[in-house]
């Protein structure tokens, strides 16, 4: 019966094209959603991943570096530096200054670094230098583009009226309202409200692979602090973001699946209606309903498979456009691809249900009427 399914499917090429295009559109929508979602999460944790740290040190009770009042004493940082296995402890001051530029208002997430230590600070810049001085700032390239700023231009922190000269632009440094920016540790000290404290600290170990165990063994000695391995913090951050955005993604995915199902379903249904007489002939000859169902299912699955291949292929083009035109990261994981393939085939099966129902009611005796 595969023969009939194939010949019927390819007999009307324009209909097949519309149907495959519809499935491909739904697939592009799904892959793009997954790509943007995973990309956003990966970009959000990029700051953590790229930080020169095996263990993050925060005040007790804090789950990340972006919220709450960050107070870690320099005395504790000094003590941590003496612990076995610890190679280096880097104190970091972070601030969230508001910035006004004309009608545009936004806030930065600024962290400090020591420009003389090349391991610290932002990841590879697109332009400018990491070797900045106290009045200089490194900001996301996408933010600079949005503001129409270039290297050498200035931005002003609203509350302090402090002026900063843009000395470097860093790629992929804006995510979920966080515009990651960097100033020198020395310049950041002007913003410390409680003397002798910093916001958080990075610990590097002689043996980074022992980070989780080291954080666990150091924790009891520092009950006033929260010590977390990098992997643990990255995992927690991903989970928090996932929990926040997954329901939205699921809703949009459901819409994409419905669109795809409706398109394939309508196409196969109209094809079945068009072929009602021929289905009647097949029934009269003695072809069983189950064999007719297999024809419809095969047609539906083939349409889905073609749409899937084209859709996934085009999705990577769409991903390239998203990455390059919208400054969004686009990451398609194997799990996302497997999920899309699975959803597509569920879509194909669902789409064949209505036509199959229609087949059952076609009366072979109608074939004998003129």
């Amino acid at each position, binding site marked *: *019966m595969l023969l009939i399914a194939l*010949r019927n499917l390819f007999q009307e090429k324009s209909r097949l094209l519309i149907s495959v295009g519809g499935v491909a559109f739904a697939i592009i929508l799904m892959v793009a959603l997954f790509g943007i979602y995973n990309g956003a999460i990966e970009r959000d944790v990029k700051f953590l991943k790229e930080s020169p740290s095996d263990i993050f040190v925060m005040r007790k009770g804090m789950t990340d570096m972006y919220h709450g009042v960050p107070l870690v004493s320099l005395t504790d940082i000094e003590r941590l530096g003496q612990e076995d296995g610890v190679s280096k402890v880097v104190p970091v001051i972070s601030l969230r200054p508001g910035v006004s530029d004309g009608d545009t208002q936004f806030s930065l997430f600024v962290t400090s670094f020591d420009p003389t230590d090349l391991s610290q600070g932002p990841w590879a810049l697109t332009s400018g230098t990491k070797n900045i001085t106290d009045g200089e700032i490194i900001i996301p390239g996408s933010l600079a583009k949005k503001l129409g700023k270039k290297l050498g231009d200035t931005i002003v922190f609203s509350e302090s009226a402090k002026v900063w000269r843009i000395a470097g632009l860093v790629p992929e440094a804006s995510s979920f309202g966080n515009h990651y920016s960097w100033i020198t540790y020395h310049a950041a000290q002007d913003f410390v409200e409680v003397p002798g404290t910093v916001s958080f600290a990075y610990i590097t170990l002689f043996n980074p692979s022992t980070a989780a165990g080291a954080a666990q063994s150091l924790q009891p000695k520092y009950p006033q602090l929260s010590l977390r391995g990098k992997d643990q913090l990255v995992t927690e951050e991903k989970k928090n973001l996932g929990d926040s955005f997954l329901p939205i993604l699921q809703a949009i995915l459901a819409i994409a699946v419905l669109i795809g199902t409706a398109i394939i379903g309508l196409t196969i249904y109209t094809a079945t209606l068009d072929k009602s*007489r*021929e289905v009647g002939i*097949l029934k009269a*000859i*003695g*072809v*069983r309903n189950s064999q007719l169902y297999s024809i419809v299912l095969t047609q539906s699955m083939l349409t889905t498979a073609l749409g899937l291949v084209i859709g996934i292929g085009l999705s990577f083009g769409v991903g390239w456009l998203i990455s390059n035109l919208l400054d969004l990261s686009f990451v398609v994981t194997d799990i996302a691809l497997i999920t899309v393939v699975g959803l597509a085939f569920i879509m194909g099966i669902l789409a064949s249900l209505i036509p199959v129902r229609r087949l059952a009611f076609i009366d072979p005796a109608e074939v*004998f009427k003129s």
Partner: protein
Amino acid sequence: MSTLIAENLTKRYGSGESAVSALGGVSFEAKSGEVVLIMGPSGSGKTTLLLLLGTLLRPTSGRVIINGQETSKLSNHELPRLRLKEIGFVFQHFNLLSALTAEQNVMVPLLAMGISKSAARSKAREFLKRLGLEHRMTSLPQNLSGGEEQRVAIARAMANNPSIILADEPTANLDSKTGHEIVELLRKGAKDENKCVVIVSHDPRIKDIADRIINIEDGRIS
């Protein structure tokens, strides 16, 4: 033993006062190798009779017996299998599948029987060759003449080697000469391959090929 037995067949459409009687108590028998021509004017009930014989309709009362098997005792799941194995249909409008070539159309009942694709193809080719269509095997129905289409339909009807061929007005859409060729093929099938052929028609030009003619009028044998 008769291959096909129609026993006191009646068929009523609808119910109550609006019910219409299409067939009222038709009985006849047909044997292998015999060509039976059922004739009658439009609306006489001959197509209803053919549908009942072909198990595509269930009679209101009476029985259809095919090779000793009472069809009314078969379920809706069993009837397609019986049709596929025992009955070949030839339609007035040829009713070939438009997306399939001549060869593929003949392959359909064979594939539905579960025969392998290569065996079905070789059998289909053999039938088409026998009917003089070896040069048309890969042609789509739209590229065939009416006579060629009907010959493909006959090949399809005979593909599974059924014991009964039911033909509904097989010459209605053909010119006189081609129509005669077609009924000759059906007669040849009956005689050479020992099939029971029942032709429903109101075409008097084909009377000469029938072994027996049954006239039907107002749902009854006249």
